[in-house]
């Protein structure tokens, strides 16, 4: 039966090539946009290089201090000291890494200026993250304790600074902001969209200008808490929030009195959403926006396709009449036309998959996003298959319902 349906669906496609082209063009274009979007979201939020442990990590990025009247609010990253006192010493996580937010610096090769982002990190940063070391190794606790002026650089920076991608540079010296550092290692760079890891040069937090000794709660540092397992998240959060709740308030910082102290300890996705959308119910707002975009991208072309399908199916009224006359129940016919529509949608999905791969390769190689590594992985593929299925059902059910309810005698008249 299924073979018969598919055979017929294929023949129907070949019957009007231009019509088919328009239909497939619409389906492919819609699905391509959705697949590229899914791939991009996966690139932003999924556990990818070097943040492959993202799915078992919690992020402490922002501290909010508010006065009693709620008129003054200070928000930003924390001091190294705060994170050492209240996060590094947590008992429930597997490991905690503290690193600075991205800083901007300049380096010079002759008279040529190189703009670069830098980060100050602890030694655990290299254990929590999964950087590929192309040369050398990361700095460790001994380097940090000794105050060694060392650095790990990205492969891009190596090429820019030393002019060669192939020659080893470990042991060589770089000069940044008039300070000399010995290169300890070269890593494959992290995409610019991964704010917690992207930099061209990484220094130990004891390096000059790191401000790690600042007193006060706020500063320039964030913490990434690696859990042994996702199931430990709750325990880690409870332990952390318990500690924060014991911090005596009011606190005085920068001459202002703050009565409320809030520090979030969240998963990457929640932290990401919190950064771009503040306030309560932000998840609902985000989901509503995503839902609306998906509806616009998926629903409107589906409605259009419904119209195309209705006229296309009604062309086959005589066939419907014959099938009913020879014993096809309404439900069987309904499935026949839904399967046919899914078949067409999945052909469109196949084309969209090819187009998506091409577009993703273009994005990855264009340099628009440094180190972009958009992929069609299993998640993206399964979402794409799901989208094809929903699209096929959306655009197929209504015409199939309308058609299957045709009276046999009317259908036979065409």
């Amino acid at each position: 039966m299924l073979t018969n349906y598919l055979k017929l669906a294929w023949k129907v496609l070949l019957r009007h090539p231009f019509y088919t082209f328009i239909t497939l063009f619409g389906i492919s274009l819609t699905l391509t946009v959705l697949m590229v979007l899914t791939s991009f979201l996966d690139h932003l939020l999924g556990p990818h290089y070097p943040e492959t442990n993202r799915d078992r990590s919690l992020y402490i990025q922002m501290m909010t201090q508010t006065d009693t009247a709620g008129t003054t609010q200070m928000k930003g990253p924390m001091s190294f000291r705060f994170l050492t006192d209240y996060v590094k010493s947590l008992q429930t996580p597997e490991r905690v890494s503290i690193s600075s937010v991205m800083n901007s610096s300049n380096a010079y090769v002759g008279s040529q200026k190189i703009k670069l982002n830098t980060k100050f990190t602890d030694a655990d940063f290299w254990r929590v993250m999964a950087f590929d070391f192309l040369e050398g190794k990361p700095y460790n606790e001994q380097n940090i304790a000794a105050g060694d002026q060392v650095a790990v650089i990205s492969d891009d920076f190596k090429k820019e600074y030393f002019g060669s991608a192939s020659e080893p540079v470990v042991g060589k010296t770089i000069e940044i902001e008039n300070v000399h550092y010995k290169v300890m290692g070269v890593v494959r760079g992290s995409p610019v969209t991964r704010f917690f890891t992207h930099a061209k040069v990484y220094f130990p937090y004891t390096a000059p200008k790191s401000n790690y000794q600042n007193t006060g709660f706020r500063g320039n540092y964030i913490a990434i808490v690696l859990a042994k397992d996702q199931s430990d998240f709750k325990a880690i959060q409870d332990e952390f929030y318990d500690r924060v709740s014991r911090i005596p308030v009011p606190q005085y910082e920068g001459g202002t009195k703050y009565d409320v102290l809030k520090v979030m300890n969240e998963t990457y996705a929640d932290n990401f959403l919190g950064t771009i959308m503040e306030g309560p119910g932000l998840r609902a707002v985000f989901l509503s926006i995503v839902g609306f975009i998906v509806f616009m991208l998926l629903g409107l072309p589906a409605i259009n396709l419904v119209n195309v399908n209705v006229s296309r199916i009604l062309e086959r009224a005589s066939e419907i009449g014959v099938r009913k006359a020879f014993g096809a129940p309404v439900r069987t016919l309904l499935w026949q036309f839904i399967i046919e529509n899914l078949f067409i949608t999945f052909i469109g999905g196949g084309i969209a998959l090819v187009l998506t791969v091409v577009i993703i390769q273009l994005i990855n190689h264009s340099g628009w996003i440094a180190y972009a590594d958009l992929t069609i992985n299993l998640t993206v593929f399964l979402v794409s298959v799901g989208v094809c299925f929903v699209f096929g059902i959306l655009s197929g059910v209504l015409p199939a319902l309308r058609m299957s309810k045709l009276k046999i005698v009317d259908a036979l008249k065409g």
Partner: protein
Amino acid sequence: MIKLQHVEKVYRTSAIETLALNNINLDVQKGEFVSIMGPSGCGKSTLLNIIGLLDEPSRGVVEIGGRRVEKYRDRELAHLRNEKLGFIFQSFHLINDLSVLDNVEIPLLYRSSSARQRRALAQEALEKVGLSNRMKHFPKQLSGGQKQRVAIARAIVGKPEIILADEPTGNLDSAMGNEILSILQNLNKDGATIVMVTHDDAMAKKTHRLIRLFDGTQVL
């Protein structure tokens, strides 16, 4: 085998009401070959559609194989059509996108049978109508007579007890028409009950019984 009691069919629009069939009483026995005649618009096809469960009467009782069908739902009607009835239409109604063999298999798709069984039965039916050499052809590659023979093969493939033919020779020349009639006569000899709508007196004379309609009323 087929019993109609006080059957009426009324077509209603907002402006007009047309009585297409008026108090039809009919009893067709198993193995009979009955023809229905009458001028255009007298209700012949409407009557055949009601017998074939393709349309429902406005009033009256229809019995097929001893089963009254007025309370049957879509699934039950579909099952009854599939098991008991085979249709032959004047304009063939073959699906142009399917091969001859696939067209003939259609009634079997709605039964529980394997692809191999379907294929074997369809081949057997096509052999019966002398078209076993055209199985892989498509309807557009066939003459009118050949198309009607495919339609007959489709009607008999499920071995129904009743064959309903709506002017099966209407689109064919007389030689081809006679050939089709002879196939129907052979099917009748093999035990099929046949009800045929025709305009052709000569054809009607070759059947066991003639029913004549005029303005929706049975006059013979």
